[in-house]
């Protein structure tokens, strides 16, 4: 048997793809990709790094950035005012709430100044809300925007950030921030720490992908993992170890989803920034924040990936078979039509 690697392209060899090129020329274009076109409507959500992705897509011009709510100055520039969504569980719960399938019990937390924050998006409204009614009214409008995003997007970009979270004991609602950071829930000990396992994160992401596909079968999902390390861990591990644990799970979950679903893709912003090939060059002095140059490098590879992806060649099956086949309603006289009525 001949050496099977002999047929592989240069990007598959470390020396050619990483060892020899300069840092800016290390460009891990994913093999599984698609062309972002003028007809695409892109929605974004995710952790803080996703804000950079959002900001870039928003100014890109060649696609329509979906903004289902008016995003004011200083508010996270996602497609709606959900703020940072760090975990797949948070995303699943938001969508379930948007479709009336769950009602989080405790989201109005009082700040020290007496105003209220929406605990599910604590950093979105700097002034908070004067009362609980105003908070819920804003949330109802927000949930309508989430439904619009689900229905209208052609590409949903989600950046996974954390496995660690705090959840309500009463109903499992997952919060993006720990209690007490910006405001406190009324009841003491109402929240517990959760560190989602690989299986939990994978299943949550699958649940979201399935939910989106039911509402909007044409939408693609583009996953990324935030390269920003944990600012703190509540586990007993060193924060460096906890960060590696969390990112490894999220990264593996992305691969599981892309392997399982033809319409789910992964973009390696995590590898570009935090890979040891960069020797930390894309991080600021605190070794946590990503420098603007790092963001620019990610977006440069992003452009090369999605602006130049070849238009998909129609497969044999897509030429031969009609999408309508699934919708044909059998009307065979021999088939039982009703049972019990």
């Amino acid at each position, binding site marked *: 048997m001949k050496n099977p690697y002999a047929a592989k392209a240069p990007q598959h060899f470390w020396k050619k793809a990483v060892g020899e090129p300069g840092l800016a020329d290390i460009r891990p274009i994913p093999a599984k990709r698609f062309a972002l076109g003028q007809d695409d409507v892109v929605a974004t959500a995710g952790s803080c790094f996703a804000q950079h992705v959002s900001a870039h897509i928003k100014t890109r011009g060649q696609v329509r950035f979906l903004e289902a709510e008016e995003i004011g100055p200083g508010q996270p520039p996602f497609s709606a005012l959900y703020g940072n969504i760090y975990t797949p569980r948070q995303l699943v719960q938001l969508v379930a709430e948007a479709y009336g399938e769950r009602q989080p019990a405790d989201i109005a937390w009082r700040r020290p100044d007496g105003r209220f924050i929406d605990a599910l998006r604590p950093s979105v409204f700097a002034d908070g809300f004067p009362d609980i009614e105003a908070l819920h009214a804003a949330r109802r409008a927000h949930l309508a925007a989430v439904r619009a995003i689900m229905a209208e997007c052609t590409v949903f970009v989600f950046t996974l950030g954390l496995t660690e979270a705090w959840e309500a004991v009463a109903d499992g609602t997952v919060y993006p921030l720990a209690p007490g950071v910006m405001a406190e829930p009324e009841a003491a000990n109402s929240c517990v720490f959760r560190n989602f396992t690989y299986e939990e994160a994978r299943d949550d992401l699958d649940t979201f992908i399935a939910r989106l596909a039911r509402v909007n079968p044409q939408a693609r999902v583009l996953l990324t993992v935030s390269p920003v390390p944990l600012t703190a861990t509540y586990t007993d591990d060193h924060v460096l170890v906890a960060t590696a644990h969390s990112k490894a799970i999220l990264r593996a979950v992305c691969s599981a989803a892309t392997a399982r679903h033809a319409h789910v893709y992964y973009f390696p912003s995590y590898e570009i920034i935090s890979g040891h090939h960069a020797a930390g060059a894309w991080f600021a002095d605190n070794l946590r924040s990503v420098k603007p140059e790092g963001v620019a490098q990610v977006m440069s590879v992003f452009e090369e990936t999605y602006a130049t992806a070849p238009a998909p060649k129609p497969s044999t099956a897509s030429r031969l078979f009609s999408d309508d086949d699934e919708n044909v309603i059998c009307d065979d006289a021999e088939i039982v039509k009703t049972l*019990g009525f």
Partner: protein
Amino acid sequence: MKVLVVTNCATAAYTEGLRALFPEWDVKGADLAATRKFIRERNQAFLDHMASSAMLVASLPDDPMFDTFAADGTKLFIPNFLFRAYHPDSFYLHTGGAASHAMDDGTDTPTAREGGRRQARLHSRITVTAFLLGMSAEETAAAFNGRTYEKIGYFSVFESERDKLLGRFGQAGIDLAPELERWTESGDFLYTFNHPKAVVFSDILLKALTGRFIAPAGIAAAGETLAQVPDFLAGSPRWPVYPEIAARLGFEGSLLWRTGRGAGGRSLPLAEFIAESFASLSGAAGFTADDVPGFADCAAALRS
């Protein structure tokens, strides 16, 4: 517990399967066309059952027709079954006016597109293309061979059909990979590309219920119970798996069609099938090459 089953031709299999597994449940079923008729005509028995059901088993669970289903009820989403790898030559031809059909007796898998007046009937792509090209019945029969299938691409659709099937059910949280492997190893498990044999519906129902109503320890017993559910599609038309295609799938195929039970369950060898197809196409109205998916590839293969 009251349960409502609304899906396509799997309605009877899922309804009877649930009744067999859970005799204490009140399970009723209606296919999509019947359900729309019930709702349109405000059928009170149907509406009452839907409103009081604790679970809806459906292929379109979010369809507005289920708006009156209880908000706190359980929706069990089971997508429609569709797997065209064994019968890549068959397709639904949408025509205007009178029904046309490959087996031309008006009772075999007559289908109608939702909300439209056009008829959709199963036909052979090779036969319809040959008809449009003006080929004779003999020339058409001679085209049913591996060389033609290869040129059209019939040998290269298995992977994408498998991925589509697994993807469609994966969206419902139903992983059919091991089941599909078992079905394909068993040989021809389909009557037509959207009418599988009973074992398929039983396996799908079992998978959909496992973890919710069936514990892992109960899977074997539930499987045995479901094996007793009748094959409701056994009397529907059968499309053959062509020999060259079947050989690549590991079993023996044929060129012998069979009409549905309502049309006498007649067997049609290739020559008769083509003759009846041509006769029905001659009487059909309003279809062109645009109504034949893959016409260009097929025409090129037939001309070469």
